C-alpha cells in the first residue's frame, strides 16, 4: 500500500478524482448561487475536468518545488539521486531527462496501440459495404479518436526521443528546465484520459479537426475532446521551450550549430513550430468551447461569426504540425543512415538547413487544406505555389540520402531496414503530395481516401518507421540489452507489406471517389474487395506491432548484454555507459570535429578531457591518435 | 556603493523618460483616434512605438544577445 502510494501516477489519479468531485461540487454551488439549475452537463463537467487535471498534477507532485519557491523556501537544484527501487522513478515526477524520455516514449506507444485499436474498428467496419458492427456515431468517434490520439502519440514520441537524446547528444548534464520538462510530460496522461472520456459523454462525430458549426453543437463528448487537445498542446509548448533553450544554450564547448548531430537540427526546427503554432490550435479549440459554453458565436454566422475563420486559425497550426512529426523523424533517418552506410552524411549543412526551410515554408501553406472552401482564386494560387515549394527542401533531404548511400557499405540491421521502409513510404507520400497541392486536382481529390493514403504514407515514412528505427537503435543505450534481430526483421517485413496493402487500397479507392470519414459506402461502387485487402493490411500492421511489443518486453528481461557501442557509432551518446546512470554529462566533453566523419582517417569528434590527460576520443575505426582539429 | 547609487539614478532617469514617452504617445494616440477618419495605420504605428519602448527599455530584450547588462 505504501509502495502504491509512492507512485506518483496512483497519487495523481486519486487526487484527480477528488479534484473532479470538488470541481463538480464547486460548479454546482456557484450555479445555485447564481440562481440556475445546479446540474447542467456541459459546464459542470468542463470545470470538473479542469479541476481534475490540476489536481492530478498536484497529486503527482508537479507543483511541489514551485510551491516551495513561492512560500519562500530554497528549492535548490532538482535532485539526481533517488532512494528505493529504480522502476518507481518511472511512475513519479522525476526531473531526469532520461527518465522523462522513457516515460514519454512508453506513453506514446501505449497511446499508439489504443489509437491502433480504433483503426481496427474502422477497418473491420469498412471491410465490407453495409453497416455490420458499429453505428455511424460509434464509427465517427472511433475515427476522431484514432486521429487525435495518434497525433498525441506522435507528439509524445517526438518528445520522448528528443528528451532522451538531446542532452546526451549535446553533452549537457540535463535539459535546460528539468522541472518544466517533467511537468510537460505529466500534463499528457490526464489529457489522454480526457480524450477517451469523450466516449462516455456521447463521443464526438467531428473527426479530429473539430470544425464548427458541427463541433459547436451536439454531444458533451466534444468538449472533452477539445479540452484534451488543449492540454496536449500546452504540454507540447512547454516541451518546445526546453528543446530550444537546451539546443541554444547547453551545447558542449566547441559544438557549433553546424557540428550538432543532425537529429538535433530536426528537433530544433520542429520545436519552433511547436512553440508558435500550437497556440493556434489551442486557441481555436478554446474559442469553440467558449461558443459551446457561453454562446459566444465566434464561428456562428448568425451571431456575426464566421466558420471559415476557424479553419484559418486551425490549419495555421495543424499543417505545420505535420512537420513537428516529420522533421524529427527525418532527423532520425539522417542521423542513422551514416552509421549503417559507414559514410559521412552527404551535404550536412544542406540537410540541416532544409529542416529550417521546411519549418519556415510550412507556415505559409495552411490554406491548401481549404482549397474547396471557396477562397478567392488568387489566394488559392498563392497557396498552391507555397505548398509545392515544400517539395524543394524535402527533395534536398531525399537526394542527400541517396547520395549518402552511394558507394557506402550498407549493413542491413533492423534499424536500417526501418530506414528503408521510411524511404519507400515517405517517397510514396511525397509523390502523392503534388496532386493535392495543385488546386483543380485537389478539388477532385480533397476529402477522399487518396488524401488519407497520402498522409498515412507521410506519417509512416516521416515518423512511424523512423521512430521504430530509433527505438531499435537506441534500445541498447536505454536498457543495456540487445533486442532480437530476427523478430525485428519479421516485424519490419510484416509491417511494410501490411502497410503498403492498406494504403494502396486507400489510393485506389480514393481515386475512384471514395469519400473520407464515412461509415459505409455504396456497394455499387465495387470497392468491397479492395477494402477487404486494405483491412487485412491494417490488421497485419497491428499484428506486427504485437511482435514488436513482445520483442521489446522479452529483450528487456532476457536480452543479451549489449556491447558498449553496438553500431560503431561516432555519436556522443555512445561514449557513455549503457544505460546512462546519474547526471548525463557531469563534465561536458569538448567537441573538436564533425559528427559524421566516417571513413576519414584519424578524425576525432570529441575529446573527453578531464584531469589526468587520459583522453578518450570518439574514434571508431582508426586507433586513438593524438587529437587533431578536423579540417571541416 | 557610490557607483550603485549612480547606476540607480541613471536607471530611474531612463524610467521617467520612457514613462514620459508612453504618456505622450498615449495622448497622441487618443487624438489621432478622435481626429482622423481612418486612424487604423497611424494607430498601429503608434502602438508599435509604444511596444518598442516597453520591450527595449523596460524588458531589456537586448539581454538576449548581449550578456553584459544585468549580469546578476
Amino acid at each position, binding site marked *: 500500500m505504501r509502495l502504491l502510494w509512492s507512485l506518483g501516477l496512483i497519487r495523481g489519479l486519486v487526487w484527480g478524482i477528488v479534484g473532479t468531485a470538488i470541481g463538480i461540487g464547486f460548479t454546482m454551488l456557484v450555479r445555485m448561487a447564481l440562481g440556475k439549475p445546479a446540474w447542467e452537463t456541459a459546464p459542470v463537467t468542463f470545470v470538473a475536468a479542469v479541476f481534475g487535471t490540476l489536481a492530478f498534477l498536484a497529486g503527482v507532485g508537479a507543483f511541489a518545488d514551485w510551491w516551495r519557491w513561492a512560500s519562500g523556501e530554497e528549492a535548490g537544484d532538482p535532485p539526481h539521486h533517488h532512494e528505493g527501487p529504480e522502476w518507481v522513478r518511472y511512475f513519479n515526477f522525476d526531473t531526469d531527462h532520461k527518465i522523462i524520455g522513457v516515460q514519454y516514449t512508453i506513453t506514446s506507444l501505449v497511446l499508439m496501440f489504443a489509437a491502433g485499436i480504433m483503426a481496427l474498428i474502422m477497418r473491420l467496419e469498412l471491410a465490407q459495404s453495409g453497416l455490420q458492427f458499429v453505428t*455511424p*456515431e460509434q464509427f*465517427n468517434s472511433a475515427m476522431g479518436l484514432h486521429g487525435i490520439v495518434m497525433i498525441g502519440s506522435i507528439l509524445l514520441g517526438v518528445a520522448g526521443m528528443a528528451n532522451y537524446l538531446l542532452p546526451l547528444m549535446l553533452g549537457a548534464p540535463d535539459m535546460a528546465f528539468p522541472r518544466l520538462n517533467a511537468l510537460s510530460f505529466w500534463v499528457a496522461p490526464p489529457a489522454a484520459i480526457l480524450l477517451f472520456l469523450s466516449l462516455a459523454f456521447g463521443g464526438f*462525430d467531428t*473527426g479530429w479537426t473539430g*470544425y464548427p*458549426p*458541427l463541433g459547436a453543437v451536439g454531444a458533451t463528448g466534444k468538449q472533452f475532446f477539445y479540452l484534451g487537445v488543449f492540454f496536449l498542446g500546452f504540454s507540447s509548448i512547454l516541451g518546445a521551450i526546453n528543446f530550444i533553450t537546451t539546443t541554444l544554450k547547453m551545447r558542449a564547448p566547441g559544438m557549433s550549430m553546424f557540428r550538432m548531430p543532425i537529429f538535433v537540427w530536426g528537433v530544433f526546427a520542429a520545436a519552433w513550430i511547436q512553440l508558435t503554432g500550437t497556440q493556434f490550435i489551442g486557441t481555436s479549440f478554446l474559442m469553440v468551447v467558449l461558443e459551446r459554453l457561453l454562446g459566444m458565436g465566434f464561428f456562428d*454566422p448568425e451571431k456575426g461569426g*464566421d*466558420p*471559415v475563420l476557424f479553419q484559418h486559425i486551425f490549419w495555421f497550426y495543424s499543417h505545420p504540425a505535420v512537420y513537428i512529426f516529420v522533421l524529427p523523424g527525418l532527423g532520425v533517418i539522417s542521423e542513422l543512415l551514416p552509421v549503417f*552506410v*559507414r*559514410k559521412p552524411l*552527404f*551535404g550536412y549543412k544542406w540537410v540541416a538547413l532544409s529542416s529550417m526551410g521546411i519549418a519556415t515554408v510550412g507556415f505559409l501553406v495552411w490554406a491548401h487544406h481549404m482549397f*474547396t*472552401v*471557396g477562397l478567392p482564386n488568387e489566394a*488559392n*494560387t498563392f497557396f*498552391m*505555389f507555397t505548398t509545392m*515549394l515544400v*517539395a524543394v527542401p524535402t*527533395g*534536398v533531404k531525399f*537526394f*542527400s540520402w*541517396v*547520395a549518402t548511400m*552511394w*558507394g*557506402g*557499405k*550498407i549493413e542491413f540491421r533492423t534499424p536500417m531496414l526501418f530506414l*528503408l521502409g521510411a524511404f519507400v513510404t515517405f517517397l510514396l507520400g511525397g*509523390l*502523392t503530395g503534388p*496532386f493535392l497541392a495543385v*488546386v*483543380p486536382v485537389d*478539388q*477532385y481529390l*480533397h*476529402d*477522399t481516401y487518396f488524401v488519407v493514403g497520402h498522409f498515412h504514407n507521410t506519417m509512416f515514412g516521416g515518423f512511424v518507421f523512423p521512430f521504430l528505427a530509433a527505438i531499435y537503435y537506441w534500445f541498447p543505450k536505454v536498457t543495456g540489452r540487445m533486442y532480437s534481430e530476427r523478430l525485428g526483421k519479421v516485424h519490419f517485413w510484416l509491417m511494410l507489406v501490411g502497410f503498403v496493402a492498406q494504403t494502396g487500397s486507400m489510393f485506389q479507392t480514393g*481515386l*475512384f*471517389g471514395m*469519400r473520407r*470519414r464515412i461509415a*459505409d*459506402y*455504396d456497394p455499387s461502387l465495387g470497392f468491397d474487395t479492395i477494402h477487404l485487402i486494405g483491412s487485412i493490411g491494417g490488421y497485419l500492421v497491428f499484428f506486427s506491432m504485437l511482435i514488436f511489443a513482445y520483442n521489446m518486453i522479452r529483450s528487456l528481461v532476457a536480452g543479451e548484454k549489449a556491447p558498449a557501442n553496438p553500431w560503431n557509432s561516432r555519436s556522443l551518446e555512445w561514449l557513455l555507459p549503457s544505460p546512462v546512470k546519474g547526471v548525463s554529462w557531469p563534465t561536458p566533453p569538448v567537441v573538436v570535429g564533425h559528427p559524421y566523419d*566516417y*571513413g*576519414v582517417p584519424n578524425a576525432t569528434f570529441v575529446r573527453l578531457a578531464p584531469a589526468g590527460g587520459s583522453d578518450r576520443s570518439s574514434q571508431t575505426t582508426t586507433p586513438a591518435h593524438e587529437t587533431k582539429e578536423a579540417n*571541416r | 556603493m557610490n557607483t550603485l547609487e549612480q547606476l540607480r539614478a541613471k536607471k530611474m532617469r531612463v524610467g521617467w523618460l520612457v514613462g514620459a514617452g508612453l504618456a505622450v504617445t498615449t495622448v497622441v494616440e487618443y487624438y489621432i483616434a478622435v481626429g482622423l477618419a481612418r486612424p487604423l495605420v497611424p494607430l498601429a504605428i503608434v502602438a508599435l512605438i509604444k511596444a518598442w519602448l516597453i520591450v527595449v527599455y523596460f524588458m531589456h530584450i537586448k539581454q538576449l544577445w548581449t550578456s553584459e547588462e544585468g549580469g546578476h
Partner: protein
Amino acid sequence: MKRHSVLIPTVLTFLLGIPLAVLLWKAPLLPPNAVREGDLVDFLFRLIAAIAGFVFALIVSFVGYSLIAFRRRPGDTSDGPPMHGNVPLEVTWTVVPLLVIFGVGFLGTWVLFEIDRPKPNEMTVRVTGFQFAWLFEYPAYGIRTNELVLPVEQPIKFEVTATDVIHSFWVPEFRMKIDTIPGRINVKRYTPTRIGEYTLRCAELCGAGHYAMLARVRVVSGSEFLQWVAQQSGAQAPEETLSPLAARGKELSDQLGCLACHTTDGSPSVGPTWKGLFGKEEPLADGTTVLVDEAYLRTSILRPGEQIVAGYQNIMPAYEGRLSDEDLEAIIEYIKTLK
C-alpha cells in the same frame, strides 16, 4: 576505392521511368469525366502522375542499385569513402525541382482560372445542404426538388450554401467539389457533357448521417429537361385532395429534406417510409413496439434519438427548436394522409 559509375542506375531510371510515366498518363485512374471543365483537370492529373512516376523510377533505381551494389560484404569492417558533399549537385537538385514546380504551378493556375471563368447564358441552380439531405432550386423555373436534373451542354452556375453545418457539394464525375458553408454562398461552374445518372455525395464530415447524405443527379437532353420542368411545375401545385394544412405539410417536408430519407410510396430508404405509417405498430431497436400516433411522431421529429425503429440508424437531425408548432402539425397532418 573503386569508383562506381552512375551509368547503370541512369539507364535503369529511363527503362523504368518512361514506361511508368506513359502508363500513368494513359491509365484510367479516375471515374469517367462528365463535364467540360473536367477535361482540363484530368489533363493536369495525368501530367502530375507521369512526372511523379518518373521521379519514383529515378529514386527507386538509384536506391535499389545502391542496396545491391553497396551492401556490406561478409568480413568487411571498413568504412565507406568519406564524401562530404558536392555543391554543384546540391544546387542541381534544388533548382531542377524548383523549375518543374513552377511549370506545373503555372499550368495549374491557368486551369484554375479557366474552369472558374463565367460563361455566357449560364443557368443558375441554387444548392442548399443540410443534415442530411440536399435541396435544389431552379430560380428560372421556380422549382425546388431533392433530385438534381441538368440539361446536357448547358453551362450551369451553382450557388451553394448550407443551413446548419458545413457540407461539400461533390459529384465525382463532375470532378471539382465546393464546400457549402452556412452564411456564405459559394459559386462553382460546370457544363455537363455526358447524359447519364450520377450521385451527389456530401464530401465534408457533417455528422452521423454524413455517409448517407446523397442525392440523385441526372444529366438529360434539352428536351427531356423541359419535359421534367413542366412536370415539376405541375407537381408543385398542391393536390386538391389535400387539406390546406396537409398541403402545407407536404411542401414543408419537401423543403426540409424529410423526403430525402423517407419515401411516400412505401419503398425502402434511409428512414422508414411514411406510407401507412400512421396508426401502425412499429418495432423499436430496444425490442419494444410502439403505436405510431401523433405523440410518437412529434417526439420522433423533435428528438429522433429517443425511439429508434428497429433496423434503422439514428442519423436524423433533431428538429427541436427548428420547427414551429404549426409547421410540425402540418407535417404530421401530411403523414396522416399517406394511407
